[in-house]
């Protein structure tokens, strides 16, 4: 039995569970559960009202079903919407007071929260199931006025900011999963960068689903005030379970005049075993609003995990001269499915957007790039460039490209390119001739294929991502 466990862990090294006592809300989705969550978070009344409004709206919304990967119907009454480590209910004041088991978990994940403080200068907010358990580097950030805290804390301490921006990019009424999140979101990160401040370090959040039958619904809100800059990283893992778990997060970014936000994700949720059993349904809504002039939002994502990934990190380019960028690598293996891409909505003049998407499918997996470029009639002199390339390994997998291109402005230019190919025999032969074994050769070629996107990641992440790309494709060459 034990050996079997260890064998299993070899494939997905984050697949362990942590035995920590949990406090949970009752199962199911109803008014009481939402009240419970709101109470557990000690939220003011306006927040509860907001949640209730979303819940009312949810009742009349229908789950969308136009996506390529189909999934069995989710029973929303069979999910725990709130789960917190018991020790966190009395909130520790510093990291030293944290439950040692929790610290161990994060150590296993490669994020030793304590050492982090001294070592590489990345501020981390760790979210375990439904609560944020630790945020590092608070003092240093306070000095320059950056607010980086769990969103539940921000609701209490900075209600004016939260009230103003929460739901301003992804409205309550947006679509089924976004509305569900608005009703039941539990925790997540809140970032506010004051005018003219360049955030002195990378900010990072690590999400982990631990408890079984739990959905994770985090909410992230990042506001970059005039002339500021922030780079934000997000990583996620979950234990291996045979059931499918739902992850429906909302991420909202707001960039005001001359501000820049760089948002990077390395998504490595449990993808299910090689027969496609279990795994996370990653249905995330991410949207950035370039509200001010000359603002810039850049999304970078490396998607290797999840049974089903279904998300479109988007940019609404409202301010004149604003820039939206999207860099993505999506890798699917075994029975994983992904339907991902981006939306670039050009509203302001002289707006620019760039989309680079690389998809790699292997095994029995299915990958879809779906993107929208919409240039409105007012977006004079706008430009878009899109490139999406797919790489197929074997003939049991699929790679699809579904771009929607709408141009209503004659002074704007849109260019779109896409290719689909496989690793050629010549390339493999060349590498093998120089002493690489077939797997190494494929790894090298794939890394070359992804290079454009990997370059966009902050250094520490790039190394991790590169390794992840290698691991995800292990066993796919035969």
């Amino acid at each position: 039995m034990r050996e079997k466990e260890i064998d299993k862990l070899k494939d997905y090294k984050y697949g362990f569970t942590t035995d920590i006592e949990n406090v949970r809300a009752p199962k199911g989705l109803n008014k009481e559960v939402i009240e419970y969550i709101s109470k557990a978070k000690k939220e003011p009344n306006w927040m509860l009202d907001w949640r209730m409004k979303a819940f009312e709206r949810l009742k009349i919304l229908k789950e969308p079903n136009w996506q390529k990967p189909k999934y069995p119907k989710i029973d929303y009454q069979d999910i725990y919407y709130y789960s917190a480590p018991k020790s966190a209910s009395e909130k520790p004041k510093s990291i030293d007071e944290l439950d040692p088991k929790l610290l161990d978990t994060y150590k296993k994940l490669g994020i030793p929260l304590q050492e982090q403080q001294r070592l590489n200068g990345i501020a981390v907010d760790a979210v375990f199931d439904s609560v944020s358990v630790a945020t590092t580097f608070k003092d240093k950030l306070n000095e320059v006025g950056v607010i980086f805290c769990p969103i539940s804390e921000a609701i209490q301490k900075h209600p004016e900011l939260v009230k103003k921006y929460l739901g301003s990019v992804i409205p309550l009424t947006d679509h089924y999963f976004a509305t569900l999140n608005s009703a039941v979101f539990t925790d997540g990160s809140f970032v506010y960068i004051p005018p003219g401040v360049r955030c002195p370090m990378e900010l990072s959040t690590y999400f982990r689903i631990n408890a079984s039958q739990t959905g994770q619904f985090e909410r992230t809100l990042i506001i970059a005030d005039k002339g500021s800059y922030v780079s934000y990283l997000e990583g996620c893992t979950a234990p291996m379970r045979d059931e499918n778990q739902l992850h429906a997060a909302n991420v909202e970014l707001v960039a005001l005049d001359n501000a820049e936000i760089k948002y990077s994700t390395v998504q490595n949720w449990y993808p299910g075993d090689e027969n496609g059993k279990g795994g996370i349904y990653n249905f995330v809504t991410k949207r950035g609003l370039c509200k001010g002039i000359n603002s810039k939002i850049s999304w970078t994502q490396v998607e290797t995990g999840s049974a089903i990934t279904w998300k479109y990190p988007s940019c609404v380019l409202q301010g004149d001269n604003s820039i939206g960028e999207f860099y993505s690598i999506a890798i699917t293996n075994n029975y994983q499915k992904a339907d991902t891409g981006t939306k670039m909505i050009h509203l302001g003049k002289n707006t620019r957007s760039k989309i680079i998407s690389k998809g790699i499918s292997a095994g029995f997996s299915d990958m879809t790039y779906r993107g929208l470029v919409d240039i409105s009639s007012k977006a004079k002199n706008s430009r878009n460039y899109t490139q999406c390339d797919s790489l197929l390994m074997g003939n049991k997998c699929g790679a699809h490209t579904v771009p929607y291109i709408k141009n209503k402005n004659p002074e704007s230019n849109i260019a779109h390119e896409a290719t689909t190919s496989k690793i050629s025999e010549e390339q493999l032969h060349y590498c093998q001739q120089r002493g690489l074994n077939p797997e190494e050769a494929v790894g090298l070629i794939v890394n070359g294929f992804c290079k454009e996107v990997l370059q966009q990641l902050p250094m520490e992440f790039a190394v991790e991502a590169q390794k992840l790309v290698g691991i995800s494709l292990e066993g796919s060459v035969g």
Partner: protein
Amino acid sequence: MIEQLKIDFEKLIKNSNFSKKNVEIKRKSFHNFIEKGFPNRREENWKFSDLNQIISKNIKNLSFYNDLSKPNKIDQSIFIDGLEHNKLVFVNGRIEKIEFDYEEKNKIEILDDLVLEKSNDDNNSLLSLNNAFVSKYFKLIVKKNYSLQKPLVIYNITNKDLVSKSINLKVDIFLEENSSLKLVDFSDDKSNTNFINVNYSFDLQKYSILKNYKIDNNSNNNIKYYFNYISQEINSVSEIFLLSSGSEFIKNEINCNLRGKYSSAFVNGIFILNKKKHHEIKTNINHLVENTKSYQLIKGVLEDTSKAVYQGKIFVDSKAQRTNGYQLSKAILLNDNTEFNAKPELEIYADDVKCSHGSASGSLNEDSIFYLMSRGLNYNEAKKLLINGFLLDVVEKITDSEIKNLIKNIMSLKQ
């Protein structure tokens, strides 16, 4: 509208002598259409062109019954000059002339007493509508090893007598082994606000060649839908060229199935739109076996408040190794209120394939205009020259030189 449909349908059944079998199939199709209605934007295929809305906006009191008992006069002047050709002439949906003067009689067969097949796509309500209301359905067979000496032109003419009617035509073309056909679809409309629904089916046997040129160049305010189903066997070649310019609304749908090895399909199209015209080309190329090839090139020039849509899909089955698929769409937007929407789609399940697509849209290059103006052309001449060059690229893809020249004349392009 449903009431009108029911009355018209019963009238059609009563006044025509369809076989029992056909009536049964027609009823089925009719019910399918009643259930589904005209497609609207909620259907992915009609996302950019809401036909239901377009019809209700443009056509008042659409009626579906068409009295075909009296012959119509053919206006000889519309026949294409300077090109010797065979003729099939439809006037207001009624066949008026079948003329194959240049061909050996026993090499071509035309059937018109056919049993309808159940429409192969129940989700397409317009095919159901066509099946239900088509009065005579033709099948042209080109015999083994025969190549038509001269092109065949199918004239689809409507005259002033026709107002607010729904016209349904259905033509099957069967090319036997090693045969070939050049087919020109030529439409000329003097009528107002009708809905014309044409269902073509092409069956290409081994080594056969089909060249189909669809010309819709004369301005009119009819709404049109052309559905083309193509099935190709080993080594067959299909070439389709679309000149999409005249009608108020037109959607050309091409569903091409490459079932035989080494078969290839070419689709080239041009949009030239002005006023508030709204045209769409939708292609669906299915690569079902290995070593097949497809090539698509679509270009558009849009003026005033016109709108063009290109939805192109390449599907590659997991068996279809060594597929070569290519797709390119480009548009020039000349006015503030024009719109170009593209959805170039790839769905691929095989790994040894070369597929690529590209799409670009934007304005005329000011530098090029400046260059030409500095050499003495005025602004309009420079613009015209650039647009002609842009479109000529597609016309040059036509492999039949006679028809290429004809189309150049129609578009008043000169080299």
